[in-house]
């Protein structure tokens, strides 16, 4: 029998419950409203129950090709996820030892996280504009025909857009790696080395299995942060838009529950990815546990 909770517990628990309601309530509201009947509006009451708005969404939202944006966002998100995981893992590994420029690199990473996104986005846009001008001037100077005729810009989803998102996801990735390696049992690696394992073998057979589940977390951050990113992409994405950017534009033009359907769908993807990552995390842990038992 545990001792009675103090009164402060109940007050704080109530505040906490309200906070959770505040966090989730609105999103749940639009999920419900996305199933409005054909005559339903943006607010309660529900005017029947239907999939009308999802059907409309499936057929496309006015002039905006929402599904092309959807596919672009998925592709970009997956690429950001893979790159974030690999680059953050490598850098996290490097930071465990001393190397020249270490302090500078750490400060740059933190700075990249806390410099306002609009400033980074604008900077990348300017950088690519200057680059374009330079390439065109160079093409003119050397009389290269295709540059004069068909070159427009180096800006794009997978150049400037990708870079802009990495400046946002990589700091989170590195900070997670720091947290992981700070709690890492270094004596296991020491043991591996003493037994004659090469650096690669130590990494492959000692480090990777131990940090594997955390890498799932880094990948999760990489994908979901990219999937919802607006501020850094906004100026740096070129002439096509990602899904969140289209969605932001639609908030001022769409006045039907169609936007709730789109919102529910987008959130659904995030939730699926989070659930998948969570299950993978648990599965990897369990699989490692079984392997460890067998090894005994």
């Amino acid at each position: 029998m545990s001792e009675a909770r103090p009164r402060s517990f109940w007050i704080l628990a109530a505040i906490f419950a309200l906070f959770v309601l505040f966090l989730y309530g609105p999103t749940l509201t639009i999920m419900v409203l996305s199933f409005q009947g054909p005559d339903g509006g943006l607010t309660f009451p529900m005017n029947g129950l239907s999939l009308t708005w999802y059907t409309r969404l499936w057929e496309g939202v006015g002039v905006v090709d929402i599904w092309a944006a959807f596919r672009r966002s998925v592709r970009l998100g997956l690429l950001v996820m893979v790159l974030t995981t690999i680059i953050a893992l490598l850098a996290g590994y490097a930071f465990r030892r001393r190397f020249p420029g270490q302090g500078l690199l750490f400060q740059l990473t933190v700075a990249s996280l806390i410099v306002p996104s609009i400033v980074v986005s604008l900077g990348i846009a300017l950088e690519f504009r200057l680059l374009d001008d330079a390439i065109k001037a160079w093409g003119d100077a050397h009389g290269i025909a295709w540059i004069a005729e068909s070159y427009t810009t180096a800006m794009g989803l997978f150049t400037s857009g990708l870079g802009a998102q990495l400046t946002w996801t990589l700091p989170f990735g590195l900070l997670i790696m720091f947290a992981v390696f700070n709690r890492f049992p270094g004596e296991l690696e020491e043991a591996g080395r003493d037994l004659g394992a090469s650096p690669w073998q130590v990494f492959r057979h000692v480090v990777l299995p131990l940090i594997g589940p955390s890498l799932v977390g880094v990948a999760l951050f990489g994908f979901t942060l990219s999937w919802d990113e607006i501020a850094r992409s906004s100026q740096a994405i070129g002439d096509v838009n990602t899904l969140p950017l289209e969605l932001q534009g639609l908030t001022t033009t769409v006045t039907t529950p169609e936007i709730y359907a789109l919102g529910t769908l987008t959130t659904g993807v995030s939730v699926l990815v989070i659930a998948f990552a969570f299950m993978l995390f648990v599965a990897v842990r369990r699989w490692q546990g079984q392997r460890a038992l067998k090894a005994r």
Partner: protein
Amino acid sequence: MSSSLPEAMTLPAREASRAAAPRRRWAAPLWQAMPLGLVLAGFFVLPLLATAVVSLWDYTEYSLVPAVTLRNYRDMFEGCFDVSGGLCTTFATYLSTFRLCLIVWAITLALGFTVAYFLAFHLRSNTTRNALFLLCTAPFLTSNVIRMISWIPLLGREGAVNRALLSLGIVDAPQDWLLFSEFSVVLAFVHLYTLFVVVPVFNSLMRIDRRLIEAARDLGASGTQILLHVILPLAKPGMVIGSIFVIVLVMGDFVTIGVMGGQQIASVGKIIQVQMSYLQFPAAAAQAMVLLALVLIMIAVMTKLVDIRREL
């Protein structure tokens, strides 16, 4: 697993590999850190340099003119030092952004600390604690814009809040200030960013040695005294980190203020965005440099109080 280790390696061979190792070991962290360094150089350092340079350039309606001028900064502060003429646009915008920042900061810090304190000190089971912590942080991984538009059915003229107020007889007519107003902007910021305070403060609180609190209690400190003289000082690093996040996110914002303010409220970030859309790049660059300088000063003041790296 053991079969893949070089069991058959003889002693001299092992000695040799040890001798070769230091050379590789010295270079390894360098190439491992290289990709991160290259990404940051290409998409963070160079862009900031480009911004600094372009902010000093002239421009016409359709092109940049690479001639050094202070025109952009002059334009920005035009009329600002004229005492009689009231507040200039730039100062007025910065002032309103600061104000917004201060309000959001105060609310998120108080709310975030309360939530983190509850999680860290009032839950007995680690499983419950972790589950509730995840419950608080998961929304960070979903879309901000969707979380913003989620307020429309609640706060709009026909929204749930107005209906409730009307039916309870608290007001006679639907309230307009609930949505597309400063109120909804602050609400959305608190909704989106309290998390950025909860996580670092929770981290700081979990590191506090529980014996310190017991010692304080044994020495006769009241609950309030423990909170003020033991817990708060030890939570300071987390509070500073959270504050930096909130301040930077609000100072540079243009998305939340745009969507939740009905595109009616001015902010520094919005000025930059509008100037970009009119292709006034040097003017936008100058604006960005001033914003960056101000934010860096604010951060510098706060980081004097805490060593970020020790907190990880």
